[in-house]
């Protein structure tokens, strides 16, 4: 993929009169030496794996090896059956699918890293829940995932998508930006609106640290997937209303990178600070070492 900035991407959409997903599939076909059809099939394979992860996650209450997490998606389903969520069915689906996928990940189930395994619930929950509720065609879902992918890729050219590099900004944060972009594409947003949604999502996760308890992808990672999935929808709704980020997207990405550099290493996936160094986390660490034997 040769597009290195969002300014370049937007200029290309105008110059060639193409959507972001069309540019994504063309560029990817060139890069992988495949046909556009093959790129779309490969994208669909990931979409199918995402749906399977949601379905498997919704059914299971199997705990992780630590025994800390694993039955939250089922808890949510049961509660929503009795009492509707304040924000309606779509909210129920998004939050449940995000947790279901993240729980499937922690119990060593099959998921799609998007962009990472720890943030695997965000893009699928938003795109799949909305497409079910709004009867979105398979083709439009593929377009949405292509758009999400291209947005994530351009961000990754500036910032390595790893908690160790820029904290959770670069994992769940970027996942939320990708989901916001994909959703805006799916709802027929213009390229400008897609990039605005991305900027709005990213601006509001700046500073997010990576402080997993015992270094595991469980606390706070699993629940964060649900929170940031909803965050992505907020960004998309604002952008589709014509609201613009005063700071352009490329500058927001630079800010994310610089914020990552300013962040203490104690808060970047080392589990030496934040939630990972709370009294309770230290107790959990002790109980885990007993479990390991």
């Amino acid at each position, binding site marked *: *993929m*040769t597009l*290195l900035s969002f300014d370049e991407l937007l200029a290309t959409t105008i110059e060639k009169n193409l959507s972001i997903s069309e540019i*994504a599939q063309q*560029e*990817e076909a060139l*890069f*992988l030496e495949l046909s556009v059809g093959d790129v779309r099939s*490969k*994208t669909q*394979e*990931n979409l199918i*794996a995402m749906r399977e992860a949601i379905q498997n996650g919704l059914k299971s209450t199997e705990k*992780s*090896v*630590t025994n800390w997490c694993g039955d939250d998606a089922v808890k949510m389903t049961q509660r929503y059956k009795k009492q509707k969520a304040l924000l309606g069915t779509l909210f129920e689906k998004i939050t449940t699918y995000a947790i279901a996928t993240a729980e*499937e*990940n*922690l*119990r*060593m*189930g*099959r*998921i*799609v*890293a*998007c*962009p*990472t*395994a*720890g943030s*695997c619930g965000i*893009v699928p929950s938003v795109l799949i829940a909305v497409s079910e509720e709004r009867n979105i065609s398979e083709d439009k879902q593929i377009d949405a*995932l*292509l758009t*999400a*992918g*291209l947005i*994530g*890729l351009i961000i*990754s*050219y500036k910032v*390595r*998508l*790893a908690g*160790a590099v820029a904290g959770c900004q670069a994992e769940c944060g970027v996942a939320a930006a*990708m989901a916001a972009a994909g959703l805006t594409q799916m709802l027929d947003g213009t390229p400008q609106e897609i990039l605005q949604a991305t900027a709005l999502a990213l601006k509001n996760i700046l500073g997010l640290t990576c402080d997993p308890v*015992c*270094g*595991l*992808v*469980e606390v706070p990672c699993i629940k964060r997937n649900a929170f940031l999935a909803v965050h992505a929808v907020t960004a998309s709704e604002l952008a589709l209303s014509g609201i613009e980020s005063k700071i352009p997207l490329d500058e927001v990405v630079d800010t994310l990178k610089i914020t990552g550099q300013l962040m203490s290493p104690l808060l970047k996936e080392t589990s030496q600070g934040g939630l990972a160094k709370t009294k309770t986390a230290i107790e959990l660490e002790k109980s*885990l070492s007993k*479990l*390991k034997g």
Partner: protein
Amino acid sequence: MEQQSLFSVISPIMVGPSSSHTAGAVRLGLMARNIYNAPFLKVKFILYNSFATTGFGHGTDKGLLAGLLGYSVDDSRIKNIFDIIKNEIDYSFEYVEDISRFPNSVDIIIDGKRKISGDSIGAGEIRINSIDKFPININGNYDTLLMFYKDKPGMISRVSDIIQKYEINIATLHCGRNSKGGIASMCIELDMPAKDEIVEKVKALKDVFFVTNVRKLK
């Protein structure tokens, strides 16, 4: 900035929970399998640093073993690998803290005779750093011709001469040695797998001790 595929951001389809500690572990196991390329009965894994301290919760041990047995990163059976293989293979794990090693690092010792060392460098990407005591550099993204030989002038041209006769393009070439005139290694990343004939011809060169064609990871 090197160009990347969009599928570096969406993908891999993998078993969780961590791309570096689970998918990376499976790929290190798969790479060791491709390098060893022979049946085996015994394996010892030495896990270093973060692999050692968080490997239990991330299934790093299961991933390494499953990879070595040829399971792919998205195989749902990985979490049950210890029950599946029972006593067919004698496997063991050791956990070590060593700040001279990369945070996510492993030695894989197969049948007590070959030690393959590598790191998981993030997002499921890996690199193999050494075989036995010899430095190498393989990341699994290319078919790689790997060889050890006596360090002396002219070896690169002799080997590349053999490869070019088969019209295979060399993507990268990396050499290392333990000392001047000592034992040297060459890793040649190719755009196509080296044919058996190439391996045989390189083997037949004077002062070449070991040659193998390491297949890339899917």
